């Protein structure tokens, strides 16, 4: 019997009872109590984790603005991978589409329980389409102006090479257990592939560093940002006071806890089935809004391109717009961060390159298509005006306001979608975080329970504290993962280059057959 389970559950139940009673009894006092909790947590968070944010976003002056080195780190890596792999994301796009369509899959040789590349892509995409596309774009254009969209698109196109690279390695160096279960991701390829190349010590260090940052990333972008924006959406759609975030946090935390405690049919399985429909709903709403304002599409693209190269109204001008675009694109598509390699390593294929090529489609659809669609909706609505300093509407509230500007009822659909996206993303990231946690501390009921409780506490913290603190920490944690991942990737480039050359040669020679 898992005794530790009882205590958090007891706390949740007590909180529910108290808060409901308090809300009925004396709303003024209760509101003040929640405000003081919110401010207290916010202050504590800034005081104790501000150093981490400052360290990750260490900046150098470029023109009249400060350029975070970490943004350049990811951007330059994507450029290098694009060139090194011979623009694989563009030159092999036909091959990638062929793999997804099943052209190279033998219909008679399918293993029991095998997940096709198309299924893997749709599963990964339904997980990728989320608050990064909705709230992230809202942040990018609120601070970086419409021009940030151009840099997001560019980052998405270049990020395709990073995704190709890390997902190929994720499959190549995964661990397949006799039970059929698969473990993969940067922890494994940094450790094993680096050892193969004669850098075992450095590989172990990078794997540990990545795992540490992955834990923080799961608590930041995969948790706090989601909870924060879920409550922000409720604030926008229904006028829920911001200080009531702690209640939203506790409700979501209770549901998350029930899922990650494990082993029962849970609300996660229901959410998993609903999320793809939510993604389709979001796309449908975007297409409707753009279609209704078809006459303004040209002007919107004009504003995007103009803003990208003039930086008008943006703090830091062009560089400011670029920073926001690159930041938010990375946050949305996670290219170079390493998290995708964990998710993609579960696909059943004998050819790691095939999964790498399929993965290139992800940043394209996520960033180039969906983020651009969101940016167009926001730009067309015209609610985001200079100066772009984020002081007015930002994040999910800007996106929601822009959607409901065309059709008012859309804010309700968005509210449901945002809650679902936030919840499903938390569940996915709790798994990434738990994998990293057990990589460092080993598997065991007690150690796993510690992580799960910490994860749930951060849900409440994320929903409670102010947006600025959340976005800073979430960005810092996600970007920190890329430091260790990309150092390792530089060492491992030849492995994937050889793998790609071999695969392409075998396709050309007919050794890898076409079945369609």
């Amino acid at each position: 019997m898992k005794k530790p389970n009882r205590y958090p559950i007891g706390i949740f139940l007590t909180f529910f009872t108290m808060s409901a009673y308090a809300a009925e009894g004396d709303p003024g006092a209760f509101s003040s109590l929640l405000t003081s909790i919110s401010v207290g947590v916010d202050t504590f968070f800034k005081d104790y984790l501000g150093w981490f944010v400052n360290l990750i976003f260490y900046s150098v002056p470029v023109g009249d603005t400060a350029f975070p080195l970490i943004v350049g780190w990811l951007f330059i890596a994507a450029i290098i991978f694009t060139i090194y792999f011979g623009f694989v994301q563009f030159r092999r796009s036909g091959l990638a589409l062929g793999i997804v369509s099943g052209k190279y899959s033998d219909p008679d040789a399918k293993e029991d329980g095998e997940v096709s590349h198309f299924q893997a892509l749709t599963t990964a995409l339904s997980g990728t389409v989320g608050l990064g596309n909705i709230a992230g774009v809202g942040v990018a254009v609120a601070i970086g102006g419409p021009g940030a969209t151009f840099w997001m698109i560019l980052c998405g196109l270049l990020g395709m090479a990073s995704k190709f690279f890390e997902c190929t390695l994720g499959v190549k160096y995964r661990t397949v257990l006799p039970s059929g279960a698969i473990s993969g991701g940067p922890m494994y390829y940094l450790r094993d592939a680096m050892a193969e190349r004669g850098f075992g010590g450095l590989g172990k260090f990078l794997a540990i560093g990545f795992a540490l940052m992955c834990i923080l990333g799961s608590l930041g972008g995969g948790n706090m940002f989601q909870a924060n924006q879920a409550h922000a959406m409720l604030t926008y759609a229904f006028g829920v006071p911001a200080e009531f975030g702690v209640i939203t946090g506790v409700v979501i935390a209770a549901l998350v806890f029930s899922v990650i405690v494990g082993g029962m049919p849970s609300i996660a399985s229901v959410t998993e089935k609903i999320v793809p429909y939510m993604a389709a709903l979001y796309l449908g709403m975007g297409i409707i809004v753009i279609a209704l304002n078809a006459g303004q599409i040209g002007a919107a693209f004009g504003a995007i391109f103009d803003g990208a190269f003039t930086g008008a109204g943006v703090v830091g001008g062009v560089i400011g717009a670029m920073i926001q675009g690159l930041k938010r694109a990375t946050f949305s598509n996670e290219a170079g961060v390493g998290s995708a390699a964990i998710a993609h390593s579960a696909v059943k294929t004998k050819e790691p390159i095939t999964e790498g090529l399929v993965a290139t489609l992800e940043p394209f659809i996520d960033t180039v298509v969906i983020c651009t669609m969101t940016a167009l909706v926001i730009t067309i609505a015209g609610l985001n005006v200079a100066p772009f300093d984020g002081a007015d509407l930002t994040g999910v509230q800007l996106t929601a306001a822009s959607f409901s500007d065309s059709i008012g009822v859309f804010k309700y659909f968005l509210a449901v979608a945002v809650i679902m996206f936030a919840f499903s993303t938390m569940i996915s990231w709790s798994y990434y975080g738990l994998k990293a946690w057990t990589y460092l501390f080993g598997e065991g009921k007690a150690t796993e329970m510690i992580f799960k409780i910490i994860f749930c506490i951060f849900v409440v913290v994320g929903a409670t504290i102010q947006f600025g603190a959340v976005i800073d920490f979430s960005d810092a944690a996600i970007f920190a993962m890329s430091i260790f991942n990309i150092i390792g990737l530089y060492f491992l480039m030849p492995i994937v280059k050889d793998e790609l050359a071999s695969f392409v040669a075998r396709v050309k020679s007919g050794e890898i057959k076409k079945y369609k």
Partner: protein
Amino acid sequence: MKVKDTPIDLKKALLQKGPKFRSHTIIFNENVADLKPTISSLLFCVIYIVVGLFLLLLAVIVYVKNHQLDFTIFLGAFGIAILTFGITLVMPFVKQVTFDKNRGSFRNNIDRKVELGNIVSLQILDKVITSKNGLNYPCYELNMLTKNGRRINILNHNDLVQLKSDSEKLADFLSVELIDLQCEMVL
């Protein structure tokens, strides 16, 4: 009745999923053996029921205080959905599962009742539970085999010590053979 000549694979798990904690114990009371849900399994389901009720309560408060219909519907819909989910989750746990020597039958309100005299043996199996969003963990089944070749699951949880203890007592109670079919599991 058609007689199948396909062999029964006793080592094949009956259920794909299973909890990561002890879900039931068997309580013996003279001529009756009952499955009783544990506190932890009930608490797990209660989370959904409490969250659902809490959201419904909030919906009522919002409507009474502000007459805000849209938020009331939003909270109410989520509350009803989560509450319904919780109730459907708790149902299998509280269902009556009984081996009754007085009536000479086994009932679980899912399968057709089984005459106790038709139970041939009990088997303990192990399996690995894998999921997309969680670490792998072992889980164990106690199944019974009837003379007609039916296999029915009795227990399905992750506490092997308790499951073995319950299985031995149940085998004694029914005077049938208990077969341990566990393989070596590698997680």
